[in-house]
């Protein structure tokens, strides 16, 4: 039975050392929620608080119908997977999986059944008799996941589980975790600083910075409608192109004035008084070539990053360096002059002072 998790007015740490301040977060039953942010943003602390490994200074943690704020980690019905795997080095895989159950006094046949199931799901059968030191990183992390799995818990917590793995294994295991979520339909809370993991795994992403959730939304929403400049800059690779300018609103449509020129924004309604803003354009919102019907500017190609299926070109337009995503067979050359079309109709606008998104 998947259960919801709820954090209510949570403070972690006191005074100047406060890591998290007055945080509220509702995680739905069966949801895959990713806590994403740069290191030191408080995401791991928050996860530890949910697990009961860190005390709250204020606030409550609810799991399902139970207030678990003061409960021991073992009583919360959680399983947890750590970045360093945290396997018991002196025990073989089988023992690693069963040790917690043995200590908890689970009947023997039940232990055998659960270990067999976890082993089957994670394809650990060939390694059951090996010790952690004899396993590869990916295998170790699978064992760590298995250790959470055998506990038959309602909620899985992942603390940067893939950070110690190389790129290829990371992708493989990411897919496995996604499959696992699909099969178990348990609530999963996943901490990472890797936006690809976040985008691919999450139902919803909570982007954190300095202990505050900047935006809580689906991956698509976060990508397309970042709530502020921080989120805009953090998500997306290459990062969103940012253009400073002034926004002059009117009822019928607005005008964006920047060093690259003045552009009409038909269909966009903003308040009338002029505002200093930052316009954000994803690389795919900049189209190469004239005749796109978009606001066109002249630029010079300065770098071409061919990535196979696609190419990113970096273009200089006055003092701005803009990235655009083009097809893999893009024929242009460095130093060549080109025309760029800016899809300002779909662009995001942020207030220069507050950094907040303008509706």
């Amino acid at each position: 039975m998947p259960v919801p998790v709820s954090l209510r007015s949570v403070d972690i740490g006191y005074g100047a050392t406060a890591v998290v301040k007055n945080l509220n977060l509702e995680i739905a039953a069966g949801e895959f929620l990713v806590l994403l942010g740069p290191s030191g943003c408080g995401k791991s602390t928050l996860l530890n608080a949910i697990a009961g490994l860190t005390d709250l200074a204020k606030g409550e943690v609810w799991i399902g119908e139970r207030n678990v704020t003061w409960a021991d980690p073992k009583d919360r019905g959680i399983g947890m997977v750590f970045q360093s795997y945290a396997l018991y080095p002196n025990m073989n895989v089988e023992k690693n999986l069963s040790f917690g159950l043995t200590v908890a006094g689970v009947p023997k046949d039940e232990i055998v059944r659960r270990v067999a199931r976890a082993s089957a799901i994670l394809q650990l059968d060939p390694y059951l008799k090996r010790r952690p030191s004899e396993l590869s990183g990916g295998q170790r992390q699978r064992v760590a996941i298995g250790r959470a799995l055998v506990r038959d818990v309602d909620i899985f917590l992942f603390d940067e589980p893939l950070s110690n793995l190389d790129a290829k294994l990371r992708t493989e295991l990411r897919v496995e975790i996604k499959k696992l979520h699909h099969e178990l339909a348990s609530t999963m809370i996943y901490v990472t600083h890797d936006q690809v993991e976040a985008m691919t795994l999450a139902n919803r992403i909570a982007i954190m910075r300095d202990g505050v959730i900047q935006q809580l939304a689906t991956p698509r929403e976060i990508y397309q409608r970042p709530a502020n400049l921080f989120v805009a800059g953090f998500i997306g690779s290459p990062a969103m192109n940012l253009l400073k300018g002034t926004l002059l609103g009117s009822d019928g449509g607005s005008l964006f004035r920047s060093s690259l020129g003045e552009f009409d924004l038909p269909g966009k309604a903003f308040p009338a008084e002029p505002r200093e803003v930052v316009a954000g354009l994803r690389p795919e919102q900049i189209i190469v070539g004239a005749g796109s019907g978009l606001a066109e500017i002249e630029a010079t190609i300065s770098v071409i990053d061919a990535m196979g299926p696609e190419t990113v070109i970096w273009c200089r337009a006055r003092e701005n360096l803009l990235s655009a995503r083009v097809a893999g067979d893009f024929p242009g050359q460095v130093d060549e002059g080109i025309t760029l079309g800016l899809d300002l109709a779909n662009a995001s606008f942020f207030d220069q002072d507050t950094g907040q998104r303008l509706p």
Partner: protein
Amino acid sequence: MRDPFPQSANGPRPDKVTPARLGLYAFLVIAALFFLLPAYVMLVTSFKSMEEIRSAQIFSLPHLFDWSAWIKAWSSACAGVNCTGVSAGFWNSVKITIPATVLSVLLGAVTGYALSFWRPPGGKILFAAITIGGFIPLQIFLFPMVRATAMLGLYNSLAGIVLVHVVFGLPLTTLLFRNYYASIPVELFKAARVDGAGFWRIFVSLMLPLSLPMLIVAGLMQMTGIWNDFLLGLVFAGRDNLPMTVQLNNIVTTTTGQREYNVHMAATVLTALVPLVAYFVSGRWFVRGITAGSVKG
């Protein structure tokens, strides 16, 4: 048991004084009493007059605190005809301890490093021999070492006593460093090799900085041993370089002479001050040092 899920739970878990916590502190206090008991007796004795020591109970506090034993132990206690207290050998001890500690720790580090990472031919035999050497009572070495240092012209000299300490320190320091380097990921070493660094370059630029904590740990252990050594200093240092422990021995050891217990206690504490201060100052390092040496997995 308390309800783990009170509906009103909010904020930090209420502090509870658990029996386990109480037991922990009780254990620490009892252990501390056991460890401090001799020190307590030693200190109160050092402040008593000899008359009081003869008549009073060993645990009782002195009637009036008498510093004279400390002053005497430091500056005027007689050892034979010379009445200079333990202060006389202080600088000699410093002069012996510093070079002997530095050299023996460095030798242990180099040897441990070479044995751990380079696996030279005969390395295992060498290590086994060094290990076994650690079991031989030092005193057996005395006469042959006397002959050897005399032959080298180092007998009765500062260089001689330093050499002797380095020789006898080899098993301990090598053991510590070999163990320590075995816990450093070999990839680090390989990376340095790939970068073209040679034997000494890797040692000086990579391994020495990495082993700073163990340098301090081994240094403290060696320092304690060398500072407290008495017999080797007596035999090899020569009359001009006698360490302060020789003076201490002359003050506290006697078979048929009178024993001034208060002066003995004070002299012992005074002689131990340098290692004690070193522990206080480097206590953190001492622990972190060995920490870095321990292995995961």
